[in-house]
């Protein structure tokens, strides 16, 4: 065993990269679920965002445009879900699963011409003094923009939900759509917007995988990250900062276990392999013992006539 081969600074830096896709997708899904809608199509929206972002980056040469395209792509796909559940009043679980299947198929169709291409690299942020700090600089200040964007988004969602009127309305719709409706809020409109926000975030998360973390396009490349994000929202009890903690924990243990394997640690690999799931669930379950509850209207169909 040679633990000295593991560089803690590099480990912490790659932790942030590994966590960012699920963090983005999870924070979007959190907003959707706070509005009372359960969208199981995260995986489908992520993979669609991954190919939209990849294709746009290849065509324009600009990763920034790629990320915008990914957000738009994810949001457009989520509109399909919004139509099915908010206007056609279809079952949310079934529609969400269908959305994932559809997204996987659609993305492989869109991606036909993009297999094997290499995207232009996304510039890393280079802050003159901070990036040059001995250890901290490497861990904290030498990432691409999206890592910081994801962090800022978590803070923004937390602040919006807690302090703003918009957040209050969103939560009201999610807790009791009938009461919110009686007060004159447009329940369906608010939910559609929340669904689109979730779709855009999932799209960004997907594009982060195809543009930065891997970076290339391969069919089915999100490989279940969307489901992890979904689970994360539940185990984080619908709280933004816990989503952040969960995502970093999951990303961190994933990278750490690979490092420990490569260093030849004498723990059976099976335990290392399951450790990201186990540790993340354990920590978040212990933290959620304060009886935080799901939004009361989560998954329920709303129609003004009922």
């Amino acid at each position, binding site marked *: 065993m040679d633990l000295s*081969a*593991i*560089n803690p600074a*590099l480990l912490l830096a*790659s932790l942030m990269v*590994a966590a960012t*896709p699920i963090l983005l997708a999870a924070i979007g899904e959190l907003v959707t679920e706070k509005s009372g809608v359960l969208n199981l199509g995260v995986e489908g929206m992520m993979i669609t965002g991954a190919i939209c972002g990849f294709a746009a980056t290849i065509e324009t040469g600009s990763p920034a445009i790629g990320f915008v395209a990914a957000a738009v792509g994810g949001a457009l796909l989520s509109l399909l879900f919004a139509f*099915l559940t908010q*206007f*056609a*009043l*279809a*079952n949310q679980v*079934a*529609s969400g*699963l*269908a959305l994932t*299947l*559809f997204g*996987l*198929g659609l993305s*492989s169709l869109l*991606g*036909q011409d993009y*297999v*094997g*291409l*290499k995207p232009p*690299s996304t510039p890393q942020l280079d802050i003159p003094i901070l990036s040059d700090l001995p250890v901290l600089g490497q861990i904290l200040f030498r990432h691409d923009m999206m890592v910081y964007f994801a962090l800022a988004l978590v803070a923004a969602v937390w602040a919006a939900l807690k302090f703003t009127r918009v957040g209050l309305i969103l939560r009201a719709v999610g807790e009791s759509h009938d009461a919110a409706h009686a007060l004159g809020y447009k329940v369906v409109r608010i939910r559609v917007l929340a669904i689109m926000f979730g779709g855009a975030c999932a799209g960004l998360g997907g594009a982060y*995988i195809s543009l930065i*973390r*891997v*970076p*290339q396009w*391969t*069919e*089915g*490349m*999100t*490989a*279940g*990250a969307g489901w992890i994000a979904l689970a994360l929202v539940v185990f984080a009890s619908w709280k933004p900062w816990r989503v952040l903690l969960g995502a970093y924990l999951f990303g961190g243990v*994933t*990278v750490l276990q*690979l*490092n420990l*394997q*490569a*260093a*030849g640690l*004498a723990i*059976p*690999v*099976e335990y290392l*392999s399951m450790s990201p799931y186990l540790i993340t669930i354990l920590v978040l379950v212990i933290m959620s013992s304060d009886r935080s509850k799901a939004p009361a209207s989560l998954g329920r169909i709303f*129609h003004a006539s009922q």
Partner: protein
Amino acid sequence: MKRRQIMTGAATALALVLSGGAWAESHSDKTKVGFVYVGPVGDGGWTYEHNQGRLAVEKEFGDAVETVFVENVPEGADAERVMTQMALEGADLIFTTSFGYMDPTINVAKKFPKVKFEHATGYKTAPNVSTYSARFYEGRAVQGTIAGHMTESNVVGYIGSFPIPEVIRGINAAYIHAKKVNPDVTFKIVWAYTWFDPAKEADAAKVLIEQGADVILQHTDSTAPLAAAAAAGNVIGFGQASDMAEFADGPRVSSIIDNWAPYYIQRTKAVIDGTWESAMTWDGIGPGMVGIGEITDKVPAEVKAEALALKDSIASGDYHPFTGPLKKQDGSDWLAEGETADDGTLAGMNFYVEGIEGDIPQ
């Protein structure tokens, strides 16, 4: 209310179409050949090559044959469901193309004695179940030779999928031949526990590179490790299962190519002619089931010549990649001087050879 019911009906129908759309209609007069894939056909590696084999079957027999495939089928209960569905829809021959489909294939084959099954890389047969595999370890020997010459840090990173004999054979073959040309070489092995997960494969490659590896060998299906090697610079890798030539101007210096097309055509023909019999096929570089992709100019000419000479001697049968003297990891004797490994030992290989560090997950 009525409008809503119609819309709900439409949504349900949409969902059904989405999940059921992959199934084509069956025609009884044609020979129907089914393929079960573990990854997407666009993975650029393992499943891609199996699908190339399927397309070759279509091209060879034209209208006489109809092929169907289902991709991204998890190993386990889902696989059994997919195979049963294929058999029910009239498939005459079904190729199940991943190690983890072994027991599902045997189970389903019992229920459909008239349907022929072909399971890739497994070791269980039945009157209507054949197994077929390629001697990838022959290609690994060539890779190991190149890796041993090319590494400057003397650390070779190896991304394993699952600790099964096929993967362990590959590690051993690569290590033996890397060690032969470079006594200082060490292998760092990471088990990804997946055949296909680009993000995880990329992470594994990055970790190995961070820990000093400058050659990456992979036994997973996507091109992500090569992309990670390209991003790191000064790191080389190999195409796995498919040529992955798109990385040829970057990190990819050679590749192992699986060529299933001749086998698939031959077995389909056997079903059409009614001569199909259960068999265990295990072919290597010689018969052409394993190909070595072009070695790029990054590799010095003399190393390239040495690698090609090794390839030729394996193809002609003059040399066996597992030739003694070889010891097992625990120091016990395995093969005496000049002795070669028998297929039975190779098929069930569950030990490292001497010199590899770490334990095989049990």
